[in-house]
């Protein structure tokens, strides 16, 4: 019964967020509903689009600094969705200052609502299942978005707007019924875990997300307008390859080597821009370009969404981590959008647009191996440290002694190493041993040198190998 309830909570949380996300995708975040309404009133759209994205970025980024408890997360999500609902109403009327104000307010509130879901993802989805929840959210929200887009383009933009607002209301209802008492233990759970530090990998991931998403921004501004005359096809097919890629990645075996797909994704982006440069602008050309581009977006989006999902276990503030990760995505779209607008305004030939996109892909290719290594190490280390903590003192000592070093560790260095392996930070070790933080850093440097490794993560991985050989 309890298990059934947990599954229900997870489903409600996923569907509730999918509905919110569908509203964002169909309206607020360069959605077809917004474009259609602006076109209906013959309003120049770039100010509105940029304002909404900047506000959304600010909301995502700042939410984690204000929302710090499960109750706050739930009510922030609900109230933000309510604010979005109210701020969307002016779009049923003639253009006025309320349009821009409403878009900025709903963009900011939307950022808060999305980031707050970090708590629900952490609380209701088991650790190794987060990739599935993330995939589900992206698939459901895109399916709903396609339905809303089709209505907005083929029937009426106002019916589309009504539908996207209905998504918000339905999402609020589902989030409202989620219990919050279950999440009270999250802080204790996190505090008992180990502090290897996710700051560096998170920063690397954000950088990766920004760079890779610049291509999405370019796509919005350059590729989409080029196929604007195929509205009937684009309204429904646009996100289909994205959904298909997500579905494939979601159902891959847990043991499958996912990093290969990242390189496939890179090749698909390159292929998309080269096709855009070489092919024409008819329906079949659109199918090729869009399938390659959106398929790659699906692969990359699920990659970084799931990594952020895994990282939530190692932070006290999932809203901050989730919001920061997603804000990097929005920032990338913004940068790409600015590049795209510049490219469109000076009417750069498609060959040169492809060169810009390929440069971005090359930068991403350089970053990818380092990022992968960092992330794999951080996740492995947490697994190792958890098992290390459950060992007896003699087992711990044996691991250290069994691992070969270039030179024997001094007693003090062994003491420092024990604390490092207990997941303590330099400051905590310094406080425990009554020495300065600078001294701890020097001992740690010596330890790394004696094990012939270059980082703590590598040191822990080296000991991890030894642990599996020993026990």
């Amino acid at each position: 019964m309890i298990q059934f309830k947990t599954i229900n909570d997870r489903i409600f949380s996923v569907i509730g967020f999918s509905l919110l996300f569908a509203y964002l995708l169909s309206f607020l975040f360069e959605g077809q509903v917004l474009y259609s309404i602006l076109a209906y009133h013959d309003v120049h759209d770039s100010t509105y689009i940029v304002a909404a994205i900047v506000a959304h970025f600010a909301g995502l980024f700042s939410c984690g600094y204000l929302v710090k408890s499960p109750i706050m997360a739930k009510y922030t999500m609900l109230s933000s969705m309510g604010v979005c609902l109210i701020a969307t109403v002016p779009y049923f009327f003639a253009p006025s200052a309320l349009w821009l104000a409403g878009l900025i307010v709903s963009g900011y509130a939307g950022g808060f609502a999305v980031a707050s879901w970090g708590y629900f993802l952490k609380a209701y989805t088991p650790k190794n299942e987060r990739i599935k929840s993330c995939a589900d959210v992206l698939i459901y929200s895109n399916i709903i978005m396609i339905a809303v887009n089709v209505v907005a383009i083929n029937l009426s933009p106002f019916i589309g707007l009504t539908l996207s607002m209905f998504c918000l209301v339905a999402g609020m209802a589902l989030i409202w019924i989620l219990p919050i008492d279950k999440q009270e233990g999250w802080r204790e759970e996190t505090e008992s875990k180990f502090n290897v530090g996710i700051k560096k990998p998170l920063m690397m991931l954000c950088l990766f997300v920004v760079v890779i998403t610049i291509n999405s921004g370019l796509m919005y501004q350059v590729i989409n307008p080029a196929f604007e005359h195929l509205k009937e096809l684009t309204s429904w097919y646009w996100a289909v390859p994205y959904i298909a890629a997500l579905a494939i990645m979601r159902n891959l075996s847990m043991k499958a080597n996912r990093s290969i797909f990242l390189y496939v994704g890179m090749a698909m982006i390159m292929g998309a821009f080269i096709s855009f440069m070489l092919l024409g602008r008819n329906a079949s050309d659109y199918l090729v370009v869009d399938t390659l581009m959106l398929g790659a977006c699906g692969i990359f989006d699920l990659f970084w969404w799931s990594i952020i999902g895994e990282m939530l276990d190692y932070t006290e503030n999932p809203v901050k981590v989730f919001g920061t990760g997603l804000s990097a995505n929005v920032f990338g779209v913004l940068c790409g959008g600015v590049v795209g607008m510049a490219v469109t305004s000076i009417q750069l030939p498609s060959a040169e647009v492809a060169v810009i996109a390929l440069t971005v892909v090359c930068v991403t290719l350089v970053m990818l191996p380092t990022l992968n290594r960092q992330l794999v190490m951080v996740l492995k280390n947490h697994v190792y440290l958890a098992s290390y903590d459950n060992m007896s003192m003699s087992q711990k000592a044996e691991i250290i002694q069994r691992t070969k070093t270039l030179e024997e560790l001094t007693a003090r260095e062994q003491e420092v190493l024990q604390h490092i392996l207990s997941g303590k930070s330099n400051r905590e070790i310094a406080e425990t041993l009554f020495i300065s933080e600078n001294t701890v850093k020097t001992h740690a440097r010596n330890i790394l040198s004696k094990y012939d490794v270059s980082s703590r993560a590598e040191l822990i991985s080296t000991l991890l190998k030894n642990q599996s050989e020993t026990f």
Partner: protein
Amino acid sequence: MKEFRKRRDCYAVFFVIGIVLTLIFAMNLMLVAAFISGMGSFILFIILVRQHLLLRDANLIWDNPILTVSSSIIIKSEGKKWEAEKTIFSTFGILMGSKIYKWGSEGVHGVRLKSILIDRERIHLTFGDLKKTICVEMLHGMADKQAVLDVQKRLLYETGVSAMISGW
């Protein structure tokens, strides 16, 4: 320590002055003067970085004392002598006034403490890397054997080097 900090701060002030002068010269199109003062600032910057690193090393030695001698003489293997009011012998080196000998802070390939001999009057230290070895003697001022044994124990714990005791 104060001496290191004072020297570092002095160079920082000179560096800032150099930069300001360079900017003033550049804005008044006195290009030669700007170039000279720019070069001077660059040299000052390098010295400043060096002084900062020295201060960092001095701090590290200061933070990890094993033996503090209020008045001491250090004799280097080539016969050179230094006198200092306060000498700190630590896990990571010796700090004697404005003179620093450091070891054990740069991993296995850096300067390492190799051997220690404590006699009635002095501590004889040998340290170095693959290229160079330095021998240093210093007056320790310890009159009690237990104090010597405590220092020996602490040295082994902190540096991994077992000190030989002679004449006690």
